[in-house]
């Protein structure tokens, strides 16, 4: 079990993470929050890239700062927009990461090939990374994160740059892994996690606002999501008045979907909430 206790990170007067406390078990945990919410700070502390100002992280009851090598041995990390050496081939990079992750050479070769196959990069294994598209880099980033068979997998915006087919493939892969391991999945894209996440961690201004399963979060939104079919002037007026709103198509017409505690318009009808509505409701103006 992974436990965050009162984790705080300050940069001068700015608090990037404020007494963040949460317990995580195996399964996929989606970290949801607007830019600057503290998601990356939390993950960077977890992987040891930055040190916390206060607080601790425990893995199975042991402070990870005292586990040192042992903790790094059980994590796999895929940063947002992973950067690689452009002159390395995909296989070179995988071999290098295998060495850095302490995989014996005799096992490394097989493992590298298997992982490249699982992320659909077998054909490109001898191509220079410099020639890779954004999606291919993301997939290579995932492959390197999995090379040590991690017990904790940390994914920072992993689907950025992937096409829909690759996103589905990626989701399936993460879902299959998540039975035995803890996956921390940080994203802005709600659709990436709404079908696979065990629980959602909503984070804002460095604080954990809520930790709950998707049905629970959606249930709480009952009676707070509305749709209106106004005329053109009415659309602009509603969008201006309710920042937590979006445009949707309904029977060839444009409707305004509004997240609000009270009925926003006499013609508004209550509708079934989605995870995206939760996001808009929790993060308000910052969500944009």
């Amino acid at each position: 079990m992974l436990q965050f206790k009162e984790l705080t990170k300050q940069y001068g007067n700015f608090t990037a993470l404020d007494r963040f406390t949460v317990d995580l078990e195996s399964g996929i945990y989606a970290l949801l929050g607007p830019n600057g919410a503290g998601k990356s700070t939390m993950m960077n502390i977890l992987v040891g890239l930055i040190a916390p100002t206060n607080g601790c992280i425990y893995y199975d009851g042991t402070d990870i700062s005292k586990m040192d090598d042992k903790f790094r041995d059980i994590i796999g990390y895929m940063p947002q927009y992973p950067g690689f050496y452009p002159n390395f081939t995909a296989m070179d990079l995988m071999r290098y990461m295998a060495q850095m992750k302490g995989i014996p050479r005799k096992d490394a070769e097989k493992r590298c090939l298997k992982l490249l196959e699982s992320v659909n990069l077998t054909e490109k294994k001898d191509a220079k990374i410099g020639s890779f598209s954004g999606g291919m880099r993301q997939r290579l980033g995932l492959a390197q994160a999995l090379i040590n068979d991690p017990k904790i997998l940390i994914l920072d915006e992993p689907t950025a740059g992937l096409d829909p087919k690759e996103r589905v493939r990626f989701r399936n892969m993460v879902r299959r892994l998540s039975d035995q391991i803890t996956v921390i999945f940080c994203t802005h894209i709600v659709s990436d996690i709404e079908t696979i996440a065990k629980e959602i961690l909503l984070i804002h201004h460095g604080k954990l606002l809520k930790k709950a399963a998707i049905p629970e979060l959606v249930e709480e939104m009952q009676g707070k999501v509305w749709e209106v079919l106004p005329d053109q002037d009415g659309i602009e007026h509603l969008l201006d008045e309710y920042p937590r709103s979006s445009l949707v198509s309904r029977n060839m017409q444009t409707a305004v979907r509004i997240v609000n505690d009270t009925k926003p318009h006499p013609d508004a009808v209550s509708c079934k909430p989605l995870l995206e509505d939760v996001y808009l409701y929790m993060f308000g103006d910052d969500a944009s």
Partner: protein
Amino acid sequence: MSRTAAAYQYEMKKLLFARKGWLILLCTVLLQIGIACFAKPYQYYSFDTQLYKEYAELYAGPYSKETERIIHASLVVSERLGEYKMEYEELSSEEMREQNQKMMLANLKTAALNEIQNKYAQLSACKEYAPEMTYDIEATEYFQKFGMNWAALIGMALLLPLLMLGDANCGMEQILFPTITGQKRITLAKLLTACSVSAALMLLCTLLQWGIFSVRWDFGTLAVPVQSLTGFGSCTIKSSISGCMILFGIIRILAAPAAALLLCLLSVLIRKEPAAITAWAVLIGCSAILASKISVFPVFSLYSALSGLSAAKTLSGVDTGFLIFFLLLKTGLLLCGTCAAAEKKK
């Protein structure tokens, strides 16, 4: 294989191949060959090599009380020789000449033997008071060229920031540091790579320099004391020129890792390649200015150590020992300091 060794192996591979460090090394070697081939010798003074060799054999090692005694004695003998010559010319009778001849010949023999020492005194005096009149060996002209090795320093300046900042610049640090090898071992591997690459580069450039100079100029008189060279008169290291060449070649190679680690530390602190290289050049330049202004500073100066043989001009044997000691101490401190600075960047 230990994790640091594995990281070291990959750092070397990345530096030389992934970041095209081999190209920089090749350019450095070509630059060194060019500098050594086209280096213009300093103007030297006319000199009778055979005559010099006799003086040099008499003068073993640095100026000492014994040297002073010999010089004083030779001056006395020289004066007496002059007196005898005058007396001899004044003698009128043949008989008297014969009577005195034996005694005078004995004295002349003694005087002749000491004449050479007298000439040495003149040579020393010339060296001290009128360097422009110094009789010297041809070696002086190319030994003055064994100063700072600019080619090796330029090579280091181009290679090392790539090594230290390459991972950070391309975003690989984020992936590498959370591995079991970890930041400490990777930083240590980088620093060990910096040390070995810089030492190898300095060795290569020094050997090229010596090789090319030996082809261009004759190295036939290396067995004579280093004090024989212009400008080395005050040096108190008891060594031949060849001994000094080897000693200061070794010091220069030992100084290369210290200079490399200083650049690594600056790269880690500043995080910008051009700024780190500029700061490094300024620090080494300051070290050179301080070494020339403060008499005890050469012992602590990185510039002195990097300067190689030319540093021997002002250093004694004891100073050289201290220079090596402080160089090793500096290397150790810079190694620890850079590791700590990299860790603190968290």
